[in-house]
C-alpha cells in the first residue's frame, strides 16, 4: 500500500488556510514524507483532475456554481472530507453579501462603483455564475472534519492531519479551536 493521498482545493477564500498549512515550516517536510500531495493550489495546478484520494481538503465557502461543482466532485473522490477555516466551516466573511440580493451585488460591483465608467455586467459563459448565497461547505456536501479558525493555526492543521493519518476522525481540542 502506498502513502495516503491528499488533495486540497481553494474555493471562496483568501488562501490564508493554505498559507497556514505552509506555515508548518519544517514540520511540513515530515507531513509530506508521510503523504502523497496530489492536486493542490500549492503546486500551481491550473486544472483540477479529481484523482481518487484518501483525504480531500476544502478551503473557502461555496459561492458560485463552479465552486459547488468542485466541492461535489471532491466529495465523490475522497474518503475523508476536511473543511479548513471559517469560510468553509461557517461561511466566513463571504456571507456578508447574503443579506443583499445577488443582482444588487453584481450591479454595485460592475456598474455602480465610483471608479467605473460605462460598466457592463460580465456575460462570458466561461465565468461561473454566482449562487444566491455564499454558504459553508456542509450546506451542500457532507463534511467529516471541521477545522475552524481564520486561518486555523498550523498546530490545528497538523493535529487534524496527524489524527486522520492515524485512522481517527479528529475533534479539535478547545485550545486549538478559535474563530476569526
Amino acid at each position: 500500500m502506498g502513502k495516503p493521498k491528499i488533495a486540497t482545493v481553494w474555493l471562496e477564500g483568501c488562501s490564508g488556510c493554505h498559507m497556514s498549512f505552509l506555515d508548518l515550516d519544517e514540520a511540513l517536510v515530515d507531513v509530506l514524507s508521510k503523504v502523497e500531495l496530489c492536486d493542490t493550489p500549492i503546486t500551481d495546478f491550473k486544472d483540477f483532475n479529481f484523482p481518487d484520494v484518501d483525504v480531500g481538503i476544502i478551503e473557502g465557502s461555496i459561492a458560485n456554481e463552479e465552486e459547488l461543482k468542485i466541492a461535489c466532485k471532491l466529495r465523490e473522490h475522497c474518503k475523508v472530507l476536511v473543511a479548513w477555516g471559517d469560510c468553509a466551516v461557517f461561511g466566513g466573511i463571504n456571507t456578508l453579501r447574503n443579506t443583499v440580493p445577488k443582482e444588487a451585488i453584481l450591479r454595485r460591483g460592475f456598474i455602480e462603483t465610483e471608479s467605473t465608467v460605462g460598466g457592463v455586467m460580465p456575460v462570458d459563459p466561461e465565468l461561473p455564475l454566482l449562487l444566491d448565497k455564499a454558504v459553508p461547505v456542509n450546506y451542500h456536501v457532507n463534511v467529516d472534519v471541521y477545522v475552524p479558525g481564520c486561518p486555523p493555526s498550523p498546530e490545528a492543521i497538523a493535529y487534524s492531519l496527524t489524527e486522520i493519518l492515524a485512522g481517527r476522525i479528529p475533534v479539535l481540542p478547545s485550545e486549538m479551536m478559535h474563530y476569526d
Partner: protein
Amino acid sequence: METNVEKVKITIDGKEVLVDPGISILEAARQNGIHIPTLCHHPALSSWGGCRICVVEVDGSPKLAASCVTPVRVGMVVVTSNERIIESRRTILEFLFAERNHNCMICAQSGDCELQKLAYELHMDHLSVPASFHEFPTDVTSDYLAIDHNRCILCGRCVRACQEISGAHVLNFNNRGPHNLIGLDLSETRDASTCLNCGVCMQVCPTGAIYDRYRTHYAVKGHDTAWQTTESLCPQCGLMCPAIFSVHDNTILKIDGKLEADDSRPDRGQLCSKGRFEVLKTMGRRLTRPMVRNGDGTMAEESWEKALDLTAGKLRAAARVKGGAAIAGLASSLHSNESLLSFRDLMGRGLGADNIDTLDGAFFRTLLRVQQDMNIPLQEASWKMIPKADHILMVGADPYQTQPVISSLIRKTIFENRTKVSVIGQQADLFPFAAHHLQLEEGGEPTLIKAMLDEVTGAETDDAKRAQAAGLLRKLGLDETGSAVFHEIVRTLTEAQNPLFIAGEGLIAAGDGSGFNSLVRLARQKGLLPGSTLRLIILKPFGNSSGAWKLGLASEAEPGSKGQATACVLFLAGEQISDPDLLERLTGLDFLAVISPYIPESLAGRADVLIPCPLWIEEDGTCTSLDGTETGYTKKVIEPPSGVRDSWQILSALAEQTGFRPDFETWNDLSNAAQKEMGG
C-alpha cells in the same frame, strides 16, 4: 442567616451535598464548585430559564430541566454533564449562532464575549443547521449606547437589568417569533427613548449587541486575559459607587458596576452615565508641562522648578505687601480629601491667605446660614434611607443631573414599594412616575415651602397659619389644579410615618435661603431619624463637597468681604470654568496660578502660570460621602501623563518654596491627617 433551617440533601454528579431549601440546582452546584454553563442567567438578576443552556438531567427524567429555575428537592439526583446534555446545549448554541449574524471581528480579538466563550467551551466547531442570513437593524442614535440586533441572542438580561437594577423599565421585547427584537419604550430609537444611559444593559449583555460609543479602541487593546482590573470607587457625586476598571496599556477600556455588591448598598451596584462613561471622555487638551506667561502674553513651557518658584515668589510678594487679604485660594470640590488638605495648608498656614473657598462655596454658605439661624447642626440623612421612606418630597432637586443613582433608586422605590413621591420644581426624569408634580414659576420654591410649612404646622387648629399659607399660594399664582396638588402633597406628608425630603440646587441656590430654612423646619416637624439625623438629603453639586466643607475649605464669608485679593491659586480637578461671575472675579487679578489636569481654555489671557495635576483616576485619594459620614478610597487606576506630579507633591513643593513645612512627609501621613479631620 437562619441556622435552624433544615438543609436538603441532594446528589449532584454522584456527590452528596447539603444545601439550603428553595435554592436552584444551579446555585446548589455553584456552591459546591460544580460548573454548569449558563447564558441568560446572571447572578445579579432574577432567573429566567430562557436559553436552556444550563439544562441538567434530574432523576433520570427524559426531559432535561433548566437548572437555574428548578428548585432543589430532597433526594434529587442531578447529572450536570453527559453526552445527551452536552449535545442538547451545543444544539441550542448552534441555533443561536444560526439565527443572527455572529461573525464578529471584535470578540476574537478581545475575547470579551460570553457567547464566544461558551462556543469554545461546548466545542461548537460547525453549525449543523443552516444560518438564516437575515439582516436586523442597528440603532446608533445615542451618544452613549448602541444596539446591534444582529448580535443579539434575546437572552433578556438587558431587559431584566433595566427593570431590576436601574428601575428604568425602558427595555422590553418587541414583536414576536423571528421578528422579536429588544426594544426601547414603544419601539423608540435610543435617543428618542426615556433611556437614562446608565449602561447596565451593556454590562450584562453576554454578546456585543449593546455596546458603548466611547471605546472605539476596545478591540485593538488586546485580549481580555491581558487586562488588569482595579476595584475602586467613583467619587463624582458623593454616592461612592463601587466601580471596576478594566485597564490595558494605561488606557481604561471599560468601567463596570459591582453588580454582585452586598446588601449594604440598595442601588445593587449600578453605575450611572457619569460613572460609566464621562470618565472616558476627554474634557479638553491635557496640560502636561508647567506653562508660564511671557511678556508678550503667550504661554510657554517652563521647568517645574522655575514655575513653582515663580508662583511662590509672586504669592509671597503679594502677601508681604498687602497681607493675607491679598491672597485667594479657590479649589474644586472634586479633589480628594488629601489634595484639599494640602491645598488648605499651603494657602492658609503657608501663605496666610484670608480668602479660601471652593467652587461650590455659595451652596455651602446657604446651608451654613440656615444652620446658624436655627442653631442646630445639619446632620443629613443617608441616601440609603430612600427605599425605607413612605413619602419622598423633592424640592428643586434633579438627581438625574447631580446624583443619577439617587434618581434610579427613587424610581425603583416607586415601583417596588409604592412609595409616594412628590416633585416640586424643575425635574425631568422622575415626574412621570411621581404621585404629585408641582411645576412652579422660576424661583417659586421658597414661597411654596413656606406655605407648606404653615399649612402643616397649622393643620386643623391654627386658622391664622392656614390663612397665611393660602395667601402665599395666591402670591404664587397657583391655579385650582395646582392648589389641589399642593393640598394633596400636604395630606400625604401629614399621613406619612417615615417621610424623606430631598433638596437640590433649585431650592438652595434660589433666593436668600429662606426656602431651604422652611424645608429644614418642615423636615424637623416630622421628627428626627436615629442619631439626631434630619429627614433630609441634600444633593450637593460636587463629588467631594462634603469632604471639602468638613476640611473648612469653603469660606464662611462671601468672597471679597475680607478685602480684594490680588493673587489667586485656582485648583481645578478637570472642570472648565464657565461661570461668568467667577470669570469676572478672576480677571482683575495681578497674578493667577491655575493647577489643573486640562488647559483651562476659558482662562486664556488671565492665567499667569499653569501647573498640571493628575485627574482623580490618576492618583490615590479618599473622598467623603454625600452625607459626610463615610469615607471612600479611590485608587490610582492609570498613570498620569508622563512628567505630571501628584497633586499633594505639587502643593507640598509650593509650600516649601514659600518657606512653610507641611506636617506630612509621605502620602500615608497626609492620608492619616485627612482621615483624622474627617473624624474617622
